[in-house]
């Protein structure tokens, strides 16, 4: 039976009332979980997994998958309205989405995020339908050297995230990398830099750091400026203008494709996809100086990418039985609880279940768009709440979100420390985006480097033995050198011009 027929069969099962209800419930819960800072998809799925034991396998998996990609929609809301990223994949959205909100354009930001998320998520699902087989082979070819090279590409993008000062961007990046060092060495397992504190054996959690750096530091800056309301301007029309749509179209398409490719590779994740997309959009833009000041492209691309990445991340689970993230690992747990083993034989042994799940992802994205677009106006009016009330709410939710990760007051203390660090860095015009990028990618960078060298017995040429890693390393080098070459060539041209005058 061909792929289209299998998909249509799955769609007919997914459209049954009970399965539609599970998709709806999962979408609503996922959005709520995404809105709550710190209560990420891992917590949401972990909390609800036991409730699915008594459900049919289709119902359970449809609901859990909907929670998973629903959190990507919800995480955007707090990023745009409060500068508090709902989870790591939404960090990038704070850079321009929040600035749009300050300019009275929260509605436009949330609208394009919802539409971009829908297109990215649905596109990725269609990609899964048609590209499962060849992409499975592609992802099998990804080993530690290829991971390392991909993350190197991610780091090369720091040049574009550095803003006006490359020196400060470099310091921010190194600071973020330094924060990933405490804990256990990923290869040898030896504790390092944990100062004898047991809580640091797991490293410094990046959620408390991000909440402090981005969320609470924003509150401190606004309080210092005696902000009465988060709005610097009146709320403009909630609709997207023709100019918004024109500017967003290509970023949405590029973000969707990029997010899908990145998401398929186990371990890279939606956060990586969103960072790569932001940097790509900034590079190809005719007006890169607009980024960081409310450029709608800075929301459209990353939001499409993170949803495409989240949906695509289910592909290695279904085809290879490899969960690419903690959240997908929990979904894998749901499979196993129902006696189903994801992997190469899943499509043969449980064909109807798999195609029903894939079809439900299209339905789930439609439900999320329908849920979120009409609520954009409601969310935007949230900004009209008097700021002392609003920031108290924000602070309470960040405390809950941080505490609930591990029921640890230590994490809340970390968040508090980094709120001061973030406040100071922002006052001194250090860019925070590089801190977030290196914080998220740093552990994978170190792990993949170590694993590659273990495989090659310490031989660094392993990174040049495959076409994929070689190509990616060359891309990374060009990405760093080209922007640095521009001012240099201009300077040389000026000097040559002066010499010829003499």
């Amino acid at each position: 039976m061909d792929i289209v027929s299998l998909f249509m069969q799955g769609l007919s099962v997914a459209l049954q009332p009970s399965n539609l209800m599970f998709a709806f419930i999962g979408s609503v819960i996922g959005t709520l979980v995404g809105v709550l800072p710190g209560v990420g998809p891992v917590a949401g799925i972990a909390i609800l997994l036991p409730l699915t034991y008594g459900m049919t396998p289709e119902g359970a998996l449809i609901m859990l998958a909907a929670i998973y990609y629903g959190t990507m929609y919800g995480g955007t809301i707090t990023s745009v309205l409060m500068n508090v990223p709902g989870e790591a994949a939404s960090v990038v959205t704070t850079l321009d989405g929040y600035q749009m909100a300050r300019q009275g354009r929260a509605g436009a930001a949330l609208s394009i995020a919802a539409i971009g998320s829908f297109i990215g998520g649905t596109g990725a699902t269609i990609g899964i339908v048609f590209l499962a087989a060849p992409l499975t082979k592609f992802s099998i070819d990804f080993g530690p050297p290829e991971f390392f090279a991909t993350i190197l590409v991610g780091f090369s993008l720091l040049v574009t995230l550095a803003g006006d000062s490359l020196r400060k961007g470099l310091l921010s990046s190194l600071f973020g990398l330094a924060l990933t060092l405490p804990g256990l060495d990923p290869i040898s397992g030896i504790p390092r830099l944990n100062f004898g504190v047991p809580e640091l054996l797991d490293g410094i959690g990046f959620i408390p750091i991000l909440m402090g750096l981005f969320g609470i530091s924003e509150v401190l800056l606004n309080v210092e400026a005696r902000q009465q309301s988060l709005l610097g301007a009146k709320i403009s029309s909630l609709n997207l203008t023709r100019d918004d749509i024109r500017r967003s179209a290509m970023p949405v398409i590029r973000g969707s494709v990029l997010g899908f490719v990145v998401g398929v590779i186990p371990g890279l994740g939606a956060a990586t996809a969103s960072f790569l997309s932001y940097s790509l959009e900034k590079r190809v833009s005719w007006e890169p100086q607009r980024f960081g000041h409310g450029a709608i492209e800075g929301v459209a691309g990353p939001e499409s990418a993170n949803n495409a990445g989240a949906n695509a991340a289910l592909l290695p689970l279904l085809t290879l039985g490899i969960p690419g993230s903690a959240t997908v690992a929990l979904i894998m747990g749901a499979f196993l609880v129902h006696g189903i083993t994801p992997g190469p034989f899943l499509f043969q042994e449980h064909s109807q279940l798999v195609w029903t799940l894939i079809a439900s992802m299209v339905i789930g994205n439609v439900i999320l768009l329908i849920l979120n677009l009409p609520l954009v106006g409601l969310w935007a009016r949230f900004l009209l709440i008097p700021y002392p009330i609003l920031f108290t709410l924000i602070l309470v939710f960040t405390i809950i979100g941080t505490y609930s990760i591990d029921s640890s007051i230590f994490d809340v203390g970390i968040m508090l420390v980094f709120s001061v660090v973030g406040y100071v860095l922002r006052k001194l015009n250090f860019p925070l985006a590089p801190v977030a990028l290196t914080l998220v990618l740093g552990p994978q960078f170190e792990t993949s480097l170590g694993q590659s060298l273990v495989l090659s017995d310490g031989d660094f040429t392993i990174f040049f033995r495959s076409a994929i890693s070689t190509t990616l390393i060359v891309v990374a080098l060009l990405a760093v050198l080209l922007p640095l070459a521009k001012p240099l060539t201009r300077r040389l041209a000026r000097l040559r011009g002066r010499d010829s005058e003499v």
Partner: protein
Amino acid sequence: MSNTNAMRCALVVLALFGAYLVFAGLQLRYYMRTGPGPGFFPVWIGGLLALSSLATFGASLRDAVDRVPFIGTRDAVLRVGTVLLGLVLVVVLLETLGFRLAVLLFALTVPWVFGQQNPLLLIVFAVLVSFGTAYVFQAWLGVWLPSSSLPVLAALGL
């Protein structure tokens, strides 16, 4: 303190942090037969951080001094300090008084200090934010929030 002095202090702190990472990394194995040891990354990242910080510090000595105060006015310092103090107290009291009471006190006092002085609105808001959110998170979402470690309060379900 001016912005320039604040920047230089921050750079010194970063440089010292970097130097510490190098020192700590050198106490561990730098390289093993199969690849980087646990000390490899701390040495490199710490070293680069320290050198970059010192280079930027050196550059700041040549730049024009920015005499704009780091925090503009005494009032601004007090506002920021008040929020931070409130947060510190919540963190310190969270497991002693329990989530509900600690957040109730926080949600009553902070908005009041910042000008929201309608008592009815404040009480309703504080109760919703403390008891209301605790109920939603614990009863609906199954997210455990800390109860009081004081027997008297714990007996009251706080």
